[in-house]
């Protein structure tokens, strides 16, 4: 059973790293402004973008099969459900 391994070049990895640093600067700058309740949302959106980059490139998810992606999706849904459904209680108490 010969499996194909995708090798990600140093260049790509470095570019992603730079993008991550830029995004870090963006979060820091953005959260300095008073955006009210949106601050948390913006910070989380940027964090999710960063996480997506790490998962896709550093963790090779971009080159994985559909199975692993589907399973990751299931795990993320589980987290969203756990947090989201708790708010049926917290929001309406």
């Amino acid at each position: 059973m010969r499996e194909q391994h995708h090798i990600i070049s140093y260049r790509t990895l470095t570019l992603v790293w730079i993008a991550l640093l830029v995004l870090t600067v963006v979060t820091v700058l953005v959260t300095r402004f008073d955006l009210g309740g949106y601050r948390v949302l913006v910070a989380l959106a940027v964090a999710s973008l960063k996480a997506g980059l790490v998962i896709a490139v550093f963790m090779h998810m971009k080159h994985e099969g559909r199975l692993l992606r589907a399973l990751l999706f299931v795990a993320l849904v589980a987290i969203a459900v756990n947090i989201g459904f708790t708010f049926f209680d917290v929001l309406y108490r």
Partner: protein
Amino acid sequence: MNQVEQADIPAAGGFWNDTGKRGITAWIFSTDHKRIGLLYLYSVFGFFLVGAVLGLLLRIELMAPGRTIMNAQTYNALFTVHGVVMIFLFIIPGFQGSFGNLVMPIQIGARDVSFPRLNLLSWWLFIIGAVIIVVALFTGGGPPDTGWTFYVPFSSRTGTNVSLAVFGVFVIGFSSILTGLNFVTTIHRLRAEGMSWSRVPLFTWSLYATAWVQILATPILAITLVLVMAERLLGTGLFDPGQGGDPIMYQHLFWIYSHPAVYIMILPAMGVISDIVPVFSRKPIFGYKMIAFSSLAIAAAGSIVWGHHMFTSGMSDTAVLVFSFLTFIVAIPSAIKVFNWVSTLYKGSISLEAPMLFALSFILLFSIGGLSGLILGAAATDIHVHDTHFVVGHFHYVMFGGAGFAFFAAMHYWLPKFYGRRYAEKPAVIAWALMFTGFNILYFTMQVLGMRGMPRRYYDYLPEFAPLNLVATIGSWILAAGLVLMVINLFRGLFKGAEFSGNPWGGATLEWSVPTPPPSENFLQEPVVTHGPYDYRGAGIP
């Protein structure tokens, strides 16, 4: 060589004497899934017997009002330990560890699980966790008295040894996670040639669904327990209203794990029944796809209903409504299974041997348990019977009448294959009859008591509950008598009973195609699967 021929080859002891090594180290350091399975079987069944004795003691205390044999504090400790032992040491690791390990790799045509050493580590972690729990009973402030749920604020304040017990459960959770990821990987990667997803036996399907629950739910328990330890040792105050925390959040986190956990307990049991019922009805299973699918559906739906344990906790009314509604959804896939089993029986040529008797009683007892669960799932009726013996009766119907009886069915069905010897049929049937009778006298009475308002977790009660409590306690003795007879007959038979070889039940799943007992890597030659798990003609079984 077709399967029937392979199964008839005398195996000369199979995996029992293949290593050349003797003694206990050939077992406790073995990475053979069958040996690990038996290690698990003996450990969890040992804990089951311990838990059963504790349960009997609790029943003796409740035989009459007032103090009977123990004081209130002892009673609190005993029901806590009974719960912790039965749930964390028997029923959660039970099926996956023992029969999952013994049978699943063979059922999919694999030589072992994906990570055999990790598998051994799972068992070790289980034993270490169990030892920690046992140590916790005799050290510090004595056995925990919180109930198995470790609810704050009591658990963060009681002087008993909660911290250590909680740590033991944490370690066992780790073991459960490792088993789960091992099984998911195994079932994805190691299916034999021809073993498509639609040919995977239903027991393995149920283990697959269970493994996902273990992976996705157990970490939440782990973090919850860590937080309880932090409350006690550091005073973080995350659940302490005095410091801005919210004790109800503990209940959320706890049940986000512990409700899915009941499906860790019951799903493999349903898988056992799905494998036994068709074999003893001489019919292919009815609705194979729906049963397989419903296992996944139960796992998924079971993960979004945790709030139904908290209707009276002070949670918001909206949440009560939502969780109550969602709870009814779980009934659908469960009912799909029950209807499919019954349809399998229809016009089958049923042979009422011991595994089948246990399996059939599972269907009845699980249905009673499941239906009483709907009474608890509906918020209005739940508030009436909350924290009464109705709840105790309900979950014993599901957990003991369901998972427990399925465990006994599995013992009678599969263990002879691994020992090459079998129990005597007649005592097995008598034992089953005693247990079934005693069980219903015990737990149905509890449900009636609960309806009348007898609260759970109290060692004393009003005199008007006395007659029914006496009945329930007598039921527990009948149940215990049956249990003792079953254990003696089963294990005496496995070591000294009549020879058992080949495929006497006539199962079409792969474990019946290997020699008895199975050799060390299960198959004499790589299996190629050409038929479904319940296709008897395809398997060449007359």
